[in-house]
């Protein structure tokens, strides 16, 4: 039996790695993903490109503008002088915000009257616009606070104003670096897509070119065949997991606070589900194109509704319940727990348990179906 398994393992490894370009893809695709996520995936809104339209141009208006531009958030990109320019800036998307001060601002402030500023935001990116409006509000509040305080001072009123001093501290990711959140998740994304694609397409390929018949008439038992088919892809997935972890920690300085053994264990448990679904798809699809589309059909919702990029807490309640049957969700919680929080099995055991149950269920179902198909 071991001889037969050994034989099919050698055949499978050869087949996957025969094409040198395939080897390259196996190594390159995690690297590209990790680089893109490491550098590009950043939803923090700093350095907002801003156009400034100061019609007033007095000391007071410049003071207000300074309090915007001294904050790291607003970067003055253009100084404009007409409404037509304002239109053009926003239409073409050259800036995300236009800060406009009408004539009379300084005069009103000096005379002790109300004054106003206008902020025009490109709402087509609603999320960004909302955040920018929030920043601007805080700046205006602070400006007004200082204005009132200086009023009181010049009037010679002696008083001490009470205030609340906010001391905020972020745990697990002290400097609030996006990539610390995303990069560990790339493991889950790569392991999922690779196991699904490689497994399902490799098996369907044998069906397509007719070599599956040969395997079936060989003395291989179905279980040995499945084992031999799945193990190489499991090894590849583990290799990619190691690659991402190494790169993430050494190159991007992602904290790794938990146990490496636990990470490997979690990946192995998760692989049962991922490879099992790949196997399942291979029993449904009759062409590689169909297999690929089915993988994509399965992968997209899994990926999007896993909490990888979009926090589950923000989803509608119905969808939140739906994510409970998403195995990637649990795998991600474990990965992030190990990397960022350094928590151990005492906190993560429920997630492990769920993954294990998923794995057993999926692999059993697909094995049964696969056996029936080839018998």
């Amino acid at each position, binding site marked *: 039996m071991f001889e037969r398994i050994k034989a099919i393992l050698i055949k499978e490894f050869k087949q996957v790695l025969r094409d040198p370009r395939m080897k390259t893809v196996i190594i390159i695709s995690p690297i590209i993903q990790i680089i893109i996520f490491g550098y590009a995936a950043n*939803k923090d809104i700093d350095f907002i490109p801003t156009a400034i339209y100061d019609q007033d141009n007095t000391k007071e208006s410049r003071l207000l503008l300074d309090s915007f531009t001294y904050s790291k958030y607003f970067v003055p990109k253009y100084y404009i002088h007409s409404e037509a320019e304002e239109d053009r800036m926003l239409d073409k998307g050259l800036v995300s915000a236009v800060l406009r001060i009408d004539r009379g601002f300084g005069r009103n402030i000096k005379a002790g009257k109300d004054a106003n500023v206008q902020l025009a935001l490109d709402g087509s990116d609603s999320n960004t616009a909302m955040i920018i409006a929030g920043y601007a509000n805080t700046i205006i509040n602070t400006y007004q606070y200082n204005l009132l305080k200086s009023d009181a001072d010049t009037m010679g009123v002696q008083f001490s104003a009470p205030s*609340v*001093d906010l001391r905020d501290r972020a745990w697990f990711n002290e400097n609030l670096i996006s990539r610390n959140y995303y990069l560990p998740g790339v493991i889950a994304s790569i392991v999922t897509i690779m196991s699904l694609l490689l497994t399902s397409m490799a098996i369907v390929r044998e069906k397509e070119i007719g070599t599956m018949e040969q395997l079936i008439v060989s003395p291989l038992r179905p279980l040995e065949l499945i084992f031999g088919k799945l193990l190489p892809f499991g090894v590849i997935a583990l290799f990619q997991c190691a690659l991402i972890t190494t790169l993430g920690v050494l190159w991007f300085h992602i904290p790794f606070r938990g146990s490496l053994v636990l990470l490997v264990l979690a990946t192995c448990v998760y692989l049962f589900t991922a490879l099992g679904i790949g196997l399942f798809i291979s029993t449904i699809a009759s062409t590689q194109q169909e297999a690929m589309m089915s993988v*994509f059909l399965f992968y997209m919702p899994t990926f999007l509704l896993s909490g990888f990029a979009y926090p589950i807490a923000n989803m509608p309640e119905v969808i939140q319940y739906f994510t409970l049957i998403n195995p990637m969700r649990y795998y991600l919680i474990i990965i992030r727990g190990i990397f*960022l929080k350094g928590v151990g099995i005492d906190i993560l055991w429920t997630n492990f348990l769920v993954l294990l149950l998923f794995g057993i269920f999926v692999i059993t179902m697909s094995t049964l179906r696969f056996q029936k198909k080839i018998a």
Partner: protein
Amino acid sequence: MNLKRILAVSSKEFIQIRRDPRSLALAIFIPVLLLLIFGYGLSLDIDRVATVVWNQDASSKLTRDFLLNFKNSKYFKIVKYTDNYRDIQHMIDNGQVMMAMVIPKDFSHFIESGKTSTLQLLVDGSDSNTATIAMGYVRSVVAKYNLNLLVKSLSSLGVSPARSVDMRSRIWFNMGLNSRWFIVPGVIAMIIMVIAALLTSICVAREWERGTMEQLISTPVKAPELIIGKFIPYFVIGFVDLFVAVVMARFLFGVPFKGSYLLLVFLSALFLTGALSQGILISTVARTQLLASQLAMLTTFIPTMLLSGFIYPIFNMPQIVQGITYLIPARYYIIILRGLFLKGNGIDEMWDDALFLLLFAFSMFGLAIIKFRKKVF
């Protein structure tokens, strides 16, 4: 170029697609599913931040009033009141809450006697983006509270502060700040890119793998004819996808369409041509379907999702990455789609983006033909 031969190839391709009805069904169903997930399932808006509060000064009315600012805001959801750090630690560790607010026991004493009191905020920073936004919410509540305190203490001294600076925000293009309006046009670009490249990436490699390419080569059909012929059925599928997506965007998600449909069709055709050619190029280079599908995923899905401005604003990326985004065709198409849907832009605002799409379409198409010729002849 011979129209008859082109049509012969494409009718062969049509038959092949018809024989695999499940792939065809998936090519229509996947876009619908993607739109549904993005439209209904994912929200970029961060509200109801789960918060645990430890009010050490719970006996005072002042702190309870202070907390009302959070209770009455849709941005926070106080899930629990506690009286120890262990609870806080535990709830943050297992992700039950995003943040914890600790009000020190002399809070009201300090405030009432005109001094400064601290307020402690502990945030789970692992999701840095959500954490930053949540902290921003707290900051603006505190800033407003401080301003009120100042106004109150001034007026108690008989000084009534007359002037105030008032900010009027005007939101253009998307008054209600509906994040669906932002996402859906981006999803359309992603769908077209991914479906087009996925479908075609396999269609040449398949012929190599099954050995039918030899047969095609021995026929009088020429390289450009073969490629255009293979192209046509997928072009049709791409347009069906676009049509379904636009109808869903307009009528299911209520996204306005302020531009010209003619422009939409024309520019989409350019983008689709580029995407399909890219798929054929991949397929020609890869020769096996497995490798082709991997390459297609890698060169279309990931960049379109991350480097196009679809979700992550480009102006936040490092300079080098911003440079790279100019090479991502979806970047231009997304600008165009948002311009057409939300801004009502015409060709005079978008001609440069359209030019890039034209360049993309032609260069990909050209490359595909050149590469294919080299492989075959």
